[in-house]
């Protein structure tokens, strides 16, 4: 149970989020977002992606600064290891999304967090991407996330934070449900 007398502060502006939700009935179109990245091949399996602009709240938006991400394959694949592998970025995205959810929901539920750690492990059978076994899929065979959370809350309240975070997570949904993807050549 929350027993602290001071205001709970996980650094999340829940009021702003709830304000957006409250505005939606009158302006549902502001909820329509488009996310973007551009990617350039460098050499070998090394590519660099940038994230800069997106569209949302009814107008063009821009990050505070341009972010760049190097993706490559590890030395064990006879590559140069200039960055995380693309599948690892998927884990980064899942962890970032779920953890943002934990913090936001904790704030909303008046639970002070002290530390939140997660390890994310994906099982991956390379028979799939190497074309060595048609019965094995290209993607992960499973993903396991383990949270360790120190908070002013009961064990069940913490479990409920993590469960609710999954329920409201974009990346969890993207990973667990099919998404229509089209790839064109311009």
């Amino acid at each position, binding site marked *: 149970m929350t027993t602290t007398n001071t205001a709970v502060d996980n650094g999340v502006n829940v009021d702003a989020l709830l304000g957006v939700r409250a505005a939606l*009935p009158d302006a549902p179109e502001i909820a329509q977002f488009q996310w973007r990245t551009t990617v350039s091949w460098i050499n070998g399996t090394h590519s660099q992606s940038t994230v800069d602009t997106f569209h949302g709240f009814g107008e063009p938006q821009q990050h505070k600064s341009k972010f760049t991400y190097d993706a490559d394959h590890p030395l064990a694949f006879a590559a140069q290891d200039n960055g995380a592998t693309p599948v690892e970025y998927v884990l980064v995205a899942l962890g970032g999304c779920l953890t943002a959810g934990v913090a936001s929901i904790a704030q909303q539920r008046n639970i002070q967090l002290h530390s939140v750690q997660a390890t994310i492990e994906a099982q991956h059978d390379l028979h799939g991407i190497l074309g060595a076994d048609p019965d094995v899929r290209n993607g992960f065979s*499973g993903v396991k996330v383990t949270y360790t959370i120190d908070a002013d809350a009961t064990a069940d309240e913490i479990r*409920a934070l993590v*469960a609710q975070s999954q329920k409201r997570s974009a990346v*969890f*949904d993207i*990973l*667990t*449900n*099919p998404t229509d993807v089209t790839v064109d050549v311009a």
Partner: protein
Amino acid sequence: MLKTTTIVVGAGHTGLAISRCLADRSIDHVVFERGEVAHSWRTQRWDSLRLLTPNWMTRLPGFAYRGEDPDGYLTASETAQLIENYAKDSAAPVRANTTVVSVRPVERGYVVQTDQDTWHARTVVSASGGSAVPHLPPLHYAVPAGITTLTPAQYRNPAELSEGGVLVVGASASGVQIAEELHRSGRPVTLAVGEHVRMPRTYRGKDILWWMDASGLLDERYDEIGDLSRARSLPSMQLVGSPERRTVDLNALRRLGVRLVGRLAGIRDGAAQFSGSLANMGALADLKLGRLLDTFDTWAAEANVDGLGAPERFAPTEVPAPAQLALDLRSGEIRTILWATGFRPDLSWLQVPVFDRKSRVRHDGGVTASPGLYLIGMPFLRRRKSSLIDGAADDAADVTDHLACYLASD
């Protein structure tokens, strides 16, 4: 044009409850019913269906269950008979076999067009049901040819289905009940499970509905809870009314041999795709049930309730690991898909601008923005119990209060 003060659309238990309240205030009215009284209870229920609420909870304005089995659960035909008896007891002005085609606003009221006559009424109450028509997800169009699909409104009993496997989509009351019955009949059932409300039939020796009623949970008001739109869209509880008061949660179904898979997320190239979120769906429901039982235990301790068994907690929902993510619908393994994916109102006849962008009527406790137009019998209309038979009395009284004030001021 025929005239009356109030027209009630639908002669189920809510329409008759409103009628009784209107009669008590001598408000002139008629009740239109497309079929006979309790039409959907006669025509759209499977053979084994019983109410989810125990008989003692079958309480309507001026009328209640008076049989010898207060802790039992009425069958569909017994429910239809009870509602018919209520209509007779009330001498309700029901016009049976009269379908409302349209309701349109006019000067000082509404014009109600039926397939028989045209009426003018100063006020209209829609009591046509919050669960009038089965709702199917858009992906039902992608089901391969050769598979029979049906809804709980069409389903009667296992013998009407082909032998062979059945995919039941949805694990709320209808889904778990039908899944259990079909699996017991020898048709292997795969149950696609999304968000659901786990509920034991009994707790500490009492029916779970007794706890909800006695602790005041069912009386929670729509204007006093945090997230009303969520409360109004909650799936039905995983309950069945049975003489042995059995529980039909996912663990019970899994023990029977029902295969649990995640929410049906897509059908692509003839294969059903299931969400990988099954474990979390189970965890969410377990945690929510735990919180509910905590509130019951706290209430029972504070209220000094005697004669209860010891508090207990139920085993966590066990889901298969790894979860099955796909199922070939063209292999012949699945012969039938049953869409237990919820019900929606059918207000297509209501030609009044009171709908939101998702075609739901905007209302404040059943009072719409169109003066004199009311709604009753919808989930959490005014109270948590609004969708139960037992919820009709309080809601009907409140809506009638408002309606009478409106008539007096108009």
